[in-house]
């Protein structure tokens, strides 16, 4: 008998469409990475394999400067936003409804409800005025803006983790003579750690990904990786741009792989 058994999880055609999907997603990225190894400067003309554009990028002071800015910005914004979001998540979960809870919830999610370009415009109006009035043009504006839109992203996984947490665990700790702080340190925080980690990662990547708000708010010399890339893109498409893009792609692969490993270990 070669008759196949009836598989309820099979839907005809899904495998074909799924494969198409993965091919469509990966071919452009593969081609981008492929051309980044082109020895020639013009992308279309293959002049042999070389890593010289990676070398060029790593000696390009403007690129290195942008990378450093991105790193400082993403780290600061995600650390602050994760801290704030953790506090906010602790305030809005594991409780009966309280007065103002709805308002807090809406405020925390508000940056998600506004298109990025609108927030960028809104911020540039105000920041422009402040820059004029105070003369301050430091990274502070970018850090504040990034912290703002990172908060809801950090808040989401932390809140989800808290809501999934067995309420009786904290009750049990209180029953076993633990003070509020002791309960938090020994029970809540260790159980919340994976949520905080994924909130931090999400905030970090979202900050790293931002182009529009950084582009509108930056002062001279404050290029981040995306704004630098966009600036170069406007001038000319070169193999170096593809090399830098490939480096960013590699970075996200590393981050995803890293978080994959981290969450596997935790659970």
């Amino acid at each position, binding site marked *: 008998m070669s008759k196949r058994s009836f598989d309820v999880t099979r839907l005809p055609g899904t495998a074909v469409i799924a494969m198409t999907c993965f091919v469509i997603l990966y071919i452009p990225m593969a081609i981008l990475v492929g051309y980044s190894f082109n020895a020639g400067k013009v992308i279309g003309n293959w002049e042999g394999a070389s890593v010289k554009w990676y070398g060029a990028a790593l000696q390009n002071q403007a690129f290195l400067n942008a990378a450093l800015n991105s790193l400082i910005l993403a780290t600061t914004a995600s650390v602050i936003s994760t801290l704030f979001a953790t506090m906010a998540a602790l305030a809005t979960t594991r409780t009966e409804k309280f007065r103002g809870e709805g308002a807090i919830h809406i405020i925390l999610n508000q940056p998600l409800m506004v298109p990025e370009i609108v927030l960028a415009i809104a911020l540039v109006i105000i920041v422009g005025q402040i820059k004029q009035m105070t003369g301050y043009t430091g990274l502070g504006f970018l850090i504040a803006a990034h912290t703002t839109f990172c908060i809801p992203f950090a808040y989401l996984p932390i809140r989800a983790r808290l809501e999934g947490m067995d309420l009786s665990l904290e009750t049990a700790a209180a029953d076993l003579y*633990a003070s509020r702080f002791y309960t938090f340190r020994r029970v809540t925080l260790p159980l919340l750690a994976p949520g905080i980690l994924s909130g931090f990662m999400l905030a970090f990547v979202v900050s790293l990904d931002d182009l529009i708000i950084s582009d509108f708010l930056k002062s001279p010399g404050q290029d981040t990786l995306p704004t630098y890339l966009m600036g170069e893109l406007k001038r000319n498409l070169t193999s170096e741009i593809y090399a830098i893009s490939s480096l960013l792609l590699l970075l996200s692969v590393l981050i995803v792989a890293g978080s994959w490993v981290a969450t596997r270990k935790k659970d």
Partner: protein
Amino acid sequence: MLDIRGLSKRFGYGKGEVTALHEVSFSIAEGEFFTLLGPSGCGKTTLLRLIAGFIGPSGGSLVLDGKDIAAMPPNQRPVNTVFQSYALFPHMTVGQNVAFALEAQGRPKSEIDPAVEKMLTLVQLLHLKNRKSSELSGGQQQRVALARALVAKPRILLLDEPLSALDMKLRKDMQIELKRLQRETGLTFIFVTHDQEEALTMSDRIAVMSGGRVQQIATPRELYDRPANRFVAGFIGESNFLSGKATGGVVEVAGGRIALPDATDGAVTLMIRPEHVVLSANAPDALQLEATIAQLVFFGTDTHVHLTLSDGEKLVARVQNALHGGLSLNEGDRITISLPDKALRVVKDEEIAA
């Protein structure tokens, strides 16, 4: 040792307000195995959480050893809980779970380690001390939860349906185990359950609850033999209820009459356990009624005889097959049955929650 006085609890506010507990009062004695029994939503868990301090009362007082603890936070009450879901900390080992209360109290390590070992020995889990709590079976988790709650020597141990997640066989074993632990430690246990068999076999006294009120507090025996009202009679064991009319101490039921001195004039409800129904006319001091056998249901040790009375009311009788095996009963037979006056009880309707 524990006096509960006029304790009440309301949830929500305005139109959404629900009263979960209506001014409950009773006392629990030192070393007692006390059970709160009732269907879900009866307020038993609310009462337990009030005693533990997880929620605050809306009124009344809770006096433990002469001290009102109603306003005391749970981490200062000498009362520990075994949770229904066990609530073992998943990120800690068995040993760390058991040590938690002593560490939280800031006791020295030299005191904690032997205490943990002793508790784990008591529940026969010493060999699993370094396992993660999530790697244990249900029965083992149950024992860890017990050890964890007992290690700090509470004045009262609260148990919130701790056996409900276990299978039948394990549940029976744990019932015996719990009773043994309670005798060995001499502790006061307050046990919450909806399982009447569990309550009857383990408790010294039982409080039957319904609608946020205590319906009756009594020993298991008393509860079964002299239920205070219709709810208790129906909830504990099986019961038949017959509606009748009383005039001057004589009750009229389905064409029969019997003298029952404690029946007050008017409509009354009589209750009788199925094993007390006699399937013949020749019992002394009994209410004799005509009945038709509607159905016979065989249960191995006994047979349930479903009867229909002349006025259409239904009644179930239980006969033991070993004693009455020879009895020839057939569905459709018309017989005369006797309800002995000693087994008949006049029951009031229970207080209904407002």
